[in-house]
């Protein structure tokens, strides 16, 4: 009898602990926080973001990780340039002026339309790079946008591409830098929320350099001869988000649109 009572007590205790344990689990959010394997850590268990950059078996840097851009370039891709340093073609200068005068009310992303390049890389919503060296391919995943495939198998960019929001991307190594060339855009994307325009002639070059475990430099070259008189560069500094994964972000309910009056 006493044995049974003890067993009941043990079962009750286990159940109570179990329920308490369950209650302590944070709301499920697609691995908002989960330790990433292979992350170098300090004595306190926190990710050591200044540890050396990891390398692939062939010695090239492994860029795999969840990264996030810097806010100012999402708003203004030319944030570090003076106004007269953006080499606008005349129509593009006019169009940019119009978009600013109406406070970017026609921003495609406000209509839940896709983010084009380079905005996908500069928006302060994380992107995940997965280096699939064995398949000669780099995959980039996003929270609210379609993935990109960057083919590293030596194929050239298409000569007469079907225009698209995300374009076509090929990559190659230049020493420790990953250089990605992309073309085949549809000209509907804006370079930033401020509204720097693009055309179907847009050719974007991204040069990624992993400085250490937690930091990258990203040089973006905008070459769009129909919109800009010469290629121009932007220097981004994405940082690694340790111990997290991408979360879904389906643009389903933009209630702002009808209220975006501009001026």
């Amino acid at each position, binding site marked *: 009898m006493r044995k049974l009572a003890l067993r009941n007590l043990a079962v009750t205790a286990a159940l109570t602990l179990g329920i308490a344990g369950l209650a302590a689990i944070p709301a499920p959010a697609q691995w908002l926080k989960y330790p990433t394997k292979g992350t170098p850590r300090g004595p306190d268990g926190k990710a050591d973001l200044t540890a050396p950059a990891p390398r692939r078996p062939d010695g090239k840097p492994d860029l795999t990780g969840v990264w996030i851009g*810097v806010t100012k370039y999402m708003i203004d891709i030319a944030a570090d340039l003076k106004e007269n340093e953006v080499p606008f073609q005349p129509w593009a200068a006019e169009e940019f002026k119009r978009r600013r005068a109406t406070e*970017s*009310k026609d921003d495609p992303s406000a209509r839940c339309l896709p983010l084009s390049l380079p905005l996908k890389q500069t928006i302060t919503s994380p992107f995940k790079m997965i280096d699939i060296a064995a398949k000669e391919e780099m995959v980039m995943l996003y929270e609210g946008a379609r993935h990109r495939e960057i083919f590293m198998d030596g194929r050239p960019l298409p000569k007469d591409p079907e225009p698209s929001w995300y374009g076509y991307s090929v990559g190659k190594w230049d020493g420790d830098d990953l250089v990605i060339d992309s073309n085949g855009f549809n000209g509907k994307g804006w370079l930033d*929320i401020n509204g720097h325009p693009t055309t179907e002639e847009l050719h974007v070059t991204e040069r990624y350099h992993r400085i250490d475990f937690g930091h990258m430099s990203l040089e973006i070259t905008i070459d769009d001869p129909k919109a800009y008189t010469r290629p121009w560069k932007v220097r981004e500094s994405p940082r690694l988000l340790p111990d997290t994964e991408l979360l879904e972000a389906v643009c389903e309910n933009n209630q702002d649109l009808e209220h975006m009056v501009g001026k």
Partner: protein
Amino acid sequence: MRNMRWLIASSILALMAAAQLLAHHSFAAEFDGNKRITLKGTVTKVDWRNPHIYVYLKVKDDRGGVIEWACEGGPPNVLLREGWTRNSVKEGDEVTIEGAVAKDGSKRCNSRSVNLADGRKVFAGSSEDSAGSSK
């Protein structure tokens, strides 16, 4: 030097909490950063959706009437990474929201801060760091 409007806009943006900086659309197309409002009311609904959450609240006016306001917050994933969830504010909670008013005159605001009755700040202003800061 960039034009004055850009300077003003960037100053306003700099004042906004991180969550608002990550708006998926132009703040200035919809809200007037110079027209600020403080709303004290009862939450009727929290719409936890992309690209921005909305907090709906009932606010009593001077004449004893009740006005429904809808106040925009950050994108859900930004808020999640700042430590908030869909349950951080519930229907019936008394809140004070400070924000910028919609340009079109509708009863909408872009919330710069949301405070619960016990003084806790929710959804905004938790961190000057941008999205995804690991805590």
